[in-house]
């Protein structure tokens, strides 16, 4: 299987050969930043196109089909339109916080994006505490939502921000506990360690019952965390116009839009990494020939394949279930998901201690 660290270490040694170490490091940081932002934008475009096509399919429509073959340039055209729209600042708003909020959102989601393992050796931030870091940087985006809602000086934005904040804080607990359950099985928090531990079977199969429960809890909590699907109360169009980003236009709205889709990608990618093996190919212990064939598929293809599969499942959620009420959302989290998650944590502890997993 191709190891991408060959390429990165080749670039590193080449740069260090012609210039001092600090200059080489600076150039590498800039390069990584540019590549990450580029991939970030491209993934967002692909997700917007995919969302519209999937939505169309679920509503028995064709979806975008005019711009380019199958409408594949529709998202690009929308992006160009968004880039050249005017930025409107409303009077009596707090302009500094109004401008700052989209940047906090996008920074939080880019930092979480940087923690993901995209393939063998293709990993920007590989810390000992990978999952914990990802959860902690994505928690910062709540501040962005609250600031956006308050600084707009609009009651719809305000209600949307309060709803969004309450929802995100609540569901973060379930998200963290389901991740903790899987960390207990893996014995490590670093993403590379978690992926390596799945070389002889994905955690969804190795951890059987508690892993399956954690997977379902994670999907529900992750979907709520991105403010999508049946949990899109914060921007319920019929009652709040657009929630916390009602007053935003042009590129600033684009930032919120981008962050929302990338959060969908990050949630799916973490689900794919922690439960479905990340870039690790499908290995079945004992089937040596089968495993060797699977190793010929590049790791990046495995990662993106699993992630887009999870994204499709989350979009399926979104276009199938009707929207919940606020009290139903909070009841679901505090009275059902959290107790189930805590019980599941105990169950996983018993299974790990007595070695009942595969």
């Amino acid at each position, binding site marked *: 299987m191709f190891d991408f660290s060959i390429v990165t270490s080749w670039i590193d040694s080449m740069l260090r050969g012609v210039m*001092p*170490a*600090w200059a080489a490091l600076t150039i590498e940081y800039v390069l990584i930043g540019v590549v990450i932002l580029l991939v970030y934008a491209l993934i967002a475009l692909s997700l917007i196109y995919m969302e519209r096509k999937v939505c169309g399919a679920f509503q028995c429509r064709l979806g975008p089909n005019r711009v380019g073959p199958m409408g594949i340039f529709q998202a690009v055209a929308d992006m160009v339109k968004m880039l050249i729209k005017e930025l409107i600042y409303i009077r009596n708003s707090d302009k500094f916080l109004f401008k*700052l909020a989209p940047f906090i959102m996008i920074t939080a989601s880019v930092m979480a994006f940087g923690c993901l393992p995209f393939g063998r050796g293709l990993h920007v931030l590989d810390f000992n*505490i990978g999952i*914990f870091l990802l959860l902690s940087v994505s928690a910062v985006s709540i*501040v962005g939502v609250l600031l956006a809602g308050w*600084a707009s*000086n609009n009651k719809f934005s305000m209600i949307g921000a309060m709803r969004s904040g309450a929802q995100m804080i609540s569901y973060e607990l379930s998200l963290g506990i389901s991740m903790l359950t899987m960390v207990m099985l893996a014995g*490590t928090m670093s993403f590379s360690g978690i992926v390596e531990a799945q070389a002889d079977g994905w955690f969804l199969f190795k951890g059987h019952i508690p892993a399956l429960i954690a997977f379902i809890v994670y999907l529900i909590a992750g979907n709520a965390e991105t403010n999508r699907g049946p949990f899109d109360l914060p921007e319920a169009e019929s009652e709040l116009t657009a929630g916390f980003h009602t007053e935003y236009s042009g590129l600033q709205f684009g930032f919120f839009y981008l962050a929302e889709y990338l959060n969908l990608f990050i949630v799916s990618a973490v689900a794919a990494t922690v439960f479905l093996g990340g870039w690790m190919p499908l290995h079945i212990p004992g089937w040596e020939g089968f495993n060797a064939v699977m190793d010929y598929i590049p790791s990046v293809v495995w990662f993106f394949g699993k992630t887009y599969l999870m994204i499709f499942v989350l979009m399926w959620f979104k276009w199938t279930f009707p929207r919940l009420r606020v009290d139903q959302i909070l009841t679901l989290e505090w009275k059902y998901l959290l107790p189930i998650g805590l019980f599941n944590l105990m169950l996983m502890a018993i299974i790990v201690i007595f070695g009942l997993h595969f």
Partner: protein
Amino acid sequence: MIELKAIHVVFAVLALIIVVFSIMTVTTRRILRAATYLLFVLFAVAALFFQLDYQFLGAVQLTIYAGGIIVLYVFSILLTHGVGDKQDLPEKKKVIPALVASLGGLALAGYMLYQETFPAVPYDATDPDMKVVGAALMGLGEGGYIFPFEVISVFLLACIIGGILIARKR
């Protein structure tokens, strides 16, 4: 030696961010802006931990302060303040005692810092993994934090019960 200089530059930038935003936090008259500047200070402190290769403490700093405390502050400000609200300027008769108190604090802190000799600690680049941190938090023996951990847990439980008691319907 050239590596050391790059580290110094990064440290200087972070220190500058911390100093500037700390001052802005206490001088701005809009309370939500003060909370935002405080957020920047906490980010820069987390960045200092990351610079020291102590990622666990950096992530804890981000989770507890940026993701927890600041969100709580912002939430309570959201419920009590409007966009146009500004803090009143301090009254004349309060200025002098406040000045004396803050200058006294500065002198005390400065004297303590000046007296303190900072011994050179050998740089330990190993990042403790999950097991080390968990054993330290739950440890009973030398360097274990089980007692403060339990005390804080009971304290937080009391806070939650108190909150429910205040908020419940009669």
